[in-house]
């Protein structure tokens, strides 16, 4: 199976206090970047589907990672290559010249070139939380989609059984390949992904795999191609216009209540939540 995984780097959410707003624009200089966690889960999922978990070094398929951004986003791609992805593509673009729709349109062109069996992506990026690219891409390609996957079973190369995380439970759907699947947090639990090369008794370590130094060094030699955005999308106009950014208001100090009755009273009459 060949899987394309689009990745995005995001400002380190643990250092959200460093984000500054300057004249209604976001200040990105000095921010630390991290791969979007949901995209890391997508890479992990793609690797699990294209290997025998008991012998992950012998690859059983191809995982191609792609990102959109300036040269320094290649760090994000190299990190994915270090965990096991086979090949990388960087679509050269400025961060603020992109929106979900343009990325989806460019990805469509890339998919037509690369012809993967599956596009796996994070359900959303934790910066803008837009949650759009997967859905738009499936629509533009005319491919089936399954969003918020918490589990994936792959018995053959024709379809996948995807457990979608929905309100109140899991919805199991069978999607015919090629398809677009977006993943949720639970996809990296030890038994969430059942690839056809891995024995059903095998349990993965919880979470995203680590990259040892040797893999980091080997990743420097893996192919990383650069593509121009204009070669993938003739129309690079954005559909989303940002009119301004504001920091959330600072949190007010809390209060201590003396009795449960006072708590109930405050929740009812001040917070108006019950």
């Amino acid at each position: 199976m060949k899987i394309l995984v689009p990745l995005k780097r995001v400002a380190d959410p643990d250092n959200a206090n460093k984000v500054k707003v300057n004249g209604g624009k976001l200040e990105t200089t000095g921010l630390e970047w991290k791969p979007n966690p949901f995209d890391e889960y997508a890479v992990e999922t793609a690797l699990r589907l294209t290997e025998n978990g008991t012998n992950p070094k012998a690859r059983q398929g191809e995982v191609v990672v792609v990102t959109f951004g300036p040269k320094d986003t290649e760090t994000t791609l190299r990190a994915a290559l270090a965990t096991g992805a086979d090949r990388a593509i960087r679509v050269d673009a400025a961060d603020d010249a992109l929106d979900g729709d343009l990325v989806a349109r460019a990805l469509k062109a890339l998919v037509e070139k690369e012809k993967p069996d599956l596009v796996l992506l994070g359900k959303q990026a934790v910066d803008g939380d837009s949650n759009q690219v997967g859905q738009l891409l499936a629509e533009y390609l005319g491919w089936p989609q399954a969003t918020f996957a918490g589990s994936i079973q792959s018995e053959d190369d024709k379809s996948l059984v995807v457990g979608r995380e929905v309100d109140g439970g899991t919805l199991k759907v069978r999607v015919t390949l090629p398809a677009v699947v977006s993943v949720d947090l639970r996809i990296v639990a030890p038994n969430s992904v059942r690839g056809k090369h891995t024995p059903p008794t095998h349990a993965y370590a919880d979470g995203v795999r680590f990259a040892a130094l040797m893999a980091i060094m080997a990743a420097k030699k893996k192919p990383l191609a650069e593509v121009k955005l204009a070669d993938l999308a003739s129309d690079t106009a954005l559909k989303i216009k940002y009119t301004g950014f504001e920091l959330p208001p600072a949190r007010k100090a809390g209060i201590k209540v003396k009795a449960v009755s006072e708590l109930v009273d405050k929740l009812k009459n001040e917070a108006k939540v019950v």
Partner: protein
Amino acid sequence: MTYFFETEEHAALRKNVRRFAEKHIRPHAHAWEEAGEFPRALYEEAAAAGVLGLGYPEEVGGGGGDITHVLAASEELVMAGQSVGTTVGLGSHGIALPPIVRLGTPEQKVRFVAPVVAGKKVAALAITEPSGGSDVARLRTTARRDGDHYVVDGAKTFITSGCRADLVTVAVRTGGEGHGGVSLLVVERGTPGFSVSKKLAKMGWWASDTAELVFEGCRVPAANLIGEENQGFYAIMVNFATERLYLAGQCVAIAELAYAESLRYARERSAFGKTLMGHQVTRHKLADMASRIAAARALTGEVTARVARGEQVPHLAAMAKNVATDMCSAVCDEAVQIHGGMGYMREVLVERLYRDARLYPIGGGTREIMNEIISKALGY
């Protein structure tokens, strides 16, 4: 801050080790330190994450890289894991294995090195004895040759990971008096006559076990001799030079952590109507701490880069160790001071770091012995 020698590769490595430490150590750091141990399962987890094998060649199952990678990784373990005891316990093989890697036979590497870097066995190094540690050439534990065995008698003390070690690289006297009679012998757990007599209670490094070991008529196969008989002293000295850089690196990391904690506290805590940071005295204290850390980091980094290049500079390693240990003790002391009464409380990280820091001018060769090495090398 990072070391001047670091490349993109070190940055990627740091990220990986940080993620490991944040996930597998940090959530338990305080509990493990209080309990005086960390779970054995951590060795295999660290091996799977590529942490344990760093600095060991691929042929023995290691993860490649050199001392520069080990230093960067251990800084992340300390800073992101926030448990010095766990870091040093997990790393005890860092002093136990190098002589085997350097001088051991291929069979010895397969038997002793490979399972340790895979996290399946634990290794310790035993040089120090109850009668003295600084004067290695006068060690008293004897190993008498008897057929194809050595019979070992004596005791070792202050041995890191000694309680749980599956194999111990032991310095023994196989020959006459002085440094010319010293050899290295690997003693495996379960060998009759080898026992752990005590788990020692100590000031800091709580999560790492420190043991007293006893050998009574302990028969060790001669095949466990590392290198040549009576040639062990030089191997021990070579090993010390890298250990001292590891220790200097740990000091830099501990100080960075104490400094970061102080910075946070100074911004949160108020006195006399403004934050501690609002007082110039605090800002200058922090500036001094940052400068001292930077200086120790610069020296440690330079010597590490020289060693990675193949230079033999034990006196520079001794200088780096002294500069870094003094710096670390001073920075941790100031960190406690900035925290005020809280700094004296067990629940606060800097209280623990202050205790952990005290080991460094003693372990791996004392401050005074470092100065002996430096003055001899400089010819006075």
